[in-house]
């Protein structure tokens, strides 16, 4: 059996001939899975070819994880035929690499020990082990950290190591269930570059689920999954075209007002959907000319500043959102039942008083300095974003700011309180949602909500109303008595958010509240966050979705424990050196590989179906760029200078600082 595996991976052509003729590495026909009475998967069919990257996208609780469990042979299907490499998944598992959201590593072993353990388990011969170890560690940029403990790696590095572990036995199939959840944008890009190389160069077949739709654009084909069924399968381009809509990018300074006007209009007329993306609105219209005219007219009617409108193809995210809205599964936006009338008086008379303030904040763990001289100032009614790569020290900073971790040195004031950050009075005014695990998995949803509303002293007569609001906002009516541990990750996040705001806090700490949450629910999250800010709550939030971060009033970028840039989103974008060029070619990955050979690799990044390239001197570099792509026979559809997005700015800032000082991961 083992011998066969090794031989077959060395000479892929020599595999089972019946399989080669079918050409499908994975075949799923009529798959059903029931848990007790609940049907998680209700008739799924798809096939994946060798060397293909197949994406499964869908809202939380669509049945993606269950499908992965069955493909990985961890769970039995109720009915249906599942074949991986022509065998039942359980028999094929030696040829399957499986990676989940949870880090499947031994945190008290080093990188090398983890790899050696996995390869021992999979009986990889020694010589091949050292070869592969070297190859994959280099591919993931981990080659210099061999003896570092896995527990001391940042989230992004951990996931790359987990991928290494999955690859060490050279599986022919990789199953990746939301591998990049909670991983920062820079590491996520590196991760996907590795996946692309594996699929195209080594013929590894990859099935991947992701809540990031810009990542999903990099798949060869996508299955849009909803309610236990695959609604649509196709290439990203096919899915976008099937929508039959056109996208108008509307850039305006009055985003909020414009969104309101256009959303009201979208119920009639040619506007199908309106979505805020950072500093622009995406308006989906049936006809580009009529739509643009209508938008301009609406702007005039409501005395909004004239906007710049660009016509573009719809994105996958547009497809996702529109399809789900058609299914009627968009989460409801219900007004929060306020009982205190907000915190407006605080906003007025204490403008000089910060809700959250720190000066020269430091924290050392042994000889390692996790946080260096951090200054944070957040006013009531303000949304402040603390952004940074995994391990930059964001969570440590938050823990100090809310009094969970004593600072090594520096001043902190929280809600006007300086000395005792742990008083019961103060904590009643604070809401806190940590990265994970804020709910009791062994209690029901209702019990959790009753507990948190009770402990924050929400008066008994108001509790019912607030709990009902949380349950309705999460779309969990009738399922209140479900054990929380059984909820999909994204759904748990929503309930946890509800639990942390029921007492209408003056100050709200949100540590990656939207990680692993599907795009529709994320939008709902930010509506709520904005609503709380308007009512006077000071909000400190971290996120790895930079487009969301555009909704912050101010933000700081942290690199290796230090704040390197701060300001409003537009200030930060404006302060970026150089010029950003958007390149659209017929082969994004190939173009990226080509350009990365000639420029520093951080200057080239893949954004969905296009490339963003940072150049220092546009006049000189743009013609250069074009001629290089032409020389490699890549068709360039478009090549134009565009303004920096926050994500571009983030990548630039992080990479420039990281190259100035070697990046230290933070022990957690």
């Amino acid at each position: 059996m083992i011998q066969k595996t090794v031989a077959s991976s060395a000479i892929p052509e020599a595999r089972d001939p019946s399989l080669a003729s079918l050409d499908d590495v994975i075949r799923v026909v009529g798959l059903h899975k029931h848990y007790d009475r609940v049907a998680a998967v209700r008739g799924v069919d798809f096939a994946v070819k060798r060397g293909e990257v197949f994406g499964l996208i869908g809202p939380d609780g669509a049945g993606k994880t269950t499908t992965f469990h069955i493909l990985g042979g961890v769970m039995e299907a109720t009915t249906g035929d599942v074949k991986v490499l022509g065998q039942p998944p359980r028999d094929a598992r030696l040829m399957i690499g499986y990676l989940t959201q949870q880090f499947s590593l031994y945190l008290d072993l080093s990188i090398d020990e983890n790899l050696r353990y996995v390869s021992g388990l999979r009986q990889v011969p020694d010589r091949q082990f050292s070869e592969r170890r070297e190859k994959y560690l280099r591919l993931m940029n981990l080659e210099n950290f061999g003896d570092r403990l896995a527990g001391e790696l940042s989230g992004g590095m951990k996931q790359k190591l987990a991928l290494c572990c999955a690859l060490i036995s050279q599986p022919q199939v990789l199953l990746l269930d939301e591998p990049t959840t909670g991983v920062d944008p820079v590491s996520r890009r590196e991760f996907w570059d590795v996946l692309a190389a594996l699929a195209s160069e080594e013929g590894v077949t990859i099935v991947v689920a992701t809540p990031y739709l810009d990542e999903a654009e990099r798949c060869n084909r996508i299955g849009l999954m909803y309610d236990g069924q695959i609604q649509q399968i196709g290439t990203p381009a096919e899915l976008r075209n099937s929508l039959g809509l056109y996208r108008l990018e509307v850039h305006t300074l009055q985003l909020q007002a414009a969104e309101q006007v256009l959303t009201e209009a979208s119920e009639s007329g040619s506007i199908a959907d309106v979505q805020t993306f950072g500093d622009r609105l995406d308006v989906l219209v049936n006809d580009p000319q009529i739509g643009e005219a209508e938008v301009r007219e609406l702007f005039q009617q409501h005395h909004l500043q004239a906007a710049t409108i660009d016509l573009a193809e719809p994105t996958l995210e547009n497809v996702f959102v529109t399809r789900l809205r058609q299914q009627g599964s968009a989460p409801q936006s219900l007004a929060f039942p306020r009982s205190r009338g907000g915190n407006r008086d605080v906003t007025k008379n204490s403008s000089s008083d910060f809700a959250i303030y720190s000066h020269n904040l430091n924290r050392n763990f042994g000889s390692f300095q996790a946080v260096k001289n951090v200054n944070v100032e957040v006013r009531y009614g303000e949304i402040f974003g603390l952004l940074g790569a995994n391990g930059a020290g964001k969570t440590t900073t938050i823990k100090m700011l809310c009094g969970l971790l004593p600072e090594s040195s520096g001043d902190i004031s929280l809600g006007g309180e300086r000395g005792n950050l742990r008083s019961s009075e103060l904590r009643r005014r604070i809401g806190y949602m940590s990265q994970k695990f804020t709910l009791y998995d062994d209690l029901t949803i209702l019990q959790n909500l009753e507990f948190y509303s009770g402990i924050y002293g929400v008066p008994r007569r108001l509790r019912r109303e607030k709990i009902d609001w949380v349950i309705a906002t999460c779309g969990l009516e009738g399922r209140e008595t479900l054990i929380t541990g059984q909820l999909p990750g994204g759904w748990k996040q929503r309930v946890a958010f509800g639990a942390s705001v029921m007492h209408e806090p003056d100050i709200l700490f949100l540590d990656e509240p939207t990680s692993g949450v599907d795009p529709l629910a994320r939008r709902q999250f930010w509506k709520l966050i904005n609503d709380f800010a308007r009512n006077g709550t000071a909000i400190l939030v971290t996120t790895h979705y930079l487009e969301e971060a555009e909704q912050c009033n101010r933000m700081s970028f942290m690199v290796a424990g230090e704040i390197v840039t701060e300001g409003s989103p537009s200030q930060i974008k404006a302060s970026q050196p150089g010029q950003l060029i958007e390149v659209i070619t017929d082969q994004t990955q190939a173009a990226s590989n080509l350009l990365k050979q000639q420029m520093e690799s951080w200057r080239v990044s893949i954004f969905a179906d296009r490339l963003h390239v940072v150049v220092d001197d546009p006049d000189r570099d743009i013609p250069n760029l074009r001629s290089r792509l032409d020389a490699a026979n890549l068709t360039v559809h478009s090549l134009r200078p565009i303004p920096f997005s926050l994500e571009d700015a983030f990548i630039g800032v992080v990479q420039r600082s990281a190259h100035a000082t070697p990046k230290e991961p933070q022990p957690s």
Partner: protein
Amino acid sequence: MKPLRRLIESRFWVLTVKEIGQILRNKQLIFLLVFPPTVQLLIFGLALNPDVQNLKLGVVDYSNTPMSRELVSALTANGVFQVDRAPPNEQILGEQVRRGEVTTGLVIPPTFNRDLKSDHSAEVQVLIDAVDANTAGIASGYAAQIINQFSQKLAPQSSAAIETQATILYNPGLVSSWFIVPGVLGLVLNLGSSLVSTATVVREKDTGTLEQLLMTPAAAWEIILAKVVPLFVLLLGEVMLAVTVATLVFHVPFRGNFFLFMGFSGLYICVGIGIGFLLATISRSQQQAILTSFFINLPLIQLSGAIAPIESMPRFFQILSLFNPLRHYVKIARSLLLKGSGLDVLYPEALALTAFAIALLAISTYKFRTQLS
């Protein structure tokens, strides 16, 4: 009604309801509180018996007279010794003892009967296999005692020394399980309360909800107390179960006041929970907590007198055992059950237990607040 309403509105109540919810969901915990204590009581009570019976006796009777046979039957009469074999000579007997085939050997010389008749003192040789020192000691004691009685019966006038008339109080049948069972009751209570309370705190730490809990307005003492109360009730149930087993299966008498006993047990539950919480706050994970608890609980049990009497320990350990809360509880349990002692006698132990409970709970509350940093 007003205080009741205040209680129901309080954070403490909310925390308690949550704890109860978690306990009810945790079938394993309830099983662990019922099944192992019962089994432990039964095993310890039935198997841990210091009495020695049916020792294998090898007899070489060169005399072979009615008198010598009478001696042998005196030895075997109360079941301590049992004649296993009768080898032809003492060399073979010695060999059998060496190989462990018999535990005790008796050699009666050919002159035995003659010596007794001629008013000489007769000698018999007893060989004892002392690999198991405890058994050997008991066997040799029995043998000496029986042979003494035998010789006194023969010549009552010659050695009319002091005759002891011991009256055995409280345990007239000298039933050893009466001694063991109340001790094991303390042992079971100690393990139950410390392990269960460690688990409830460490689980919050493992899953990360502890951080969230510390961010709520709940004070450390509220969190701790809310964890204590449901466990306290559960563990009192465990005490009742154990007492039921003790009285029904082992017929241990219950001479003291039941409520006083439950009060003392409650006090000890607080001590046990305090130990558990302290362990949980200094451990980083479930695994670490369990290993540390072995390190703490085993010496506590060994030095408590629950199984081996404190009087048989070296002096240093006897003094050390005064700092062992379990020792005091075991003493209370024995006196109260067997003697029916009341608070007038047991107040030093009661004071000690109260002091332990307050100290442990106070330290763990303090530790609880600072444990994340």
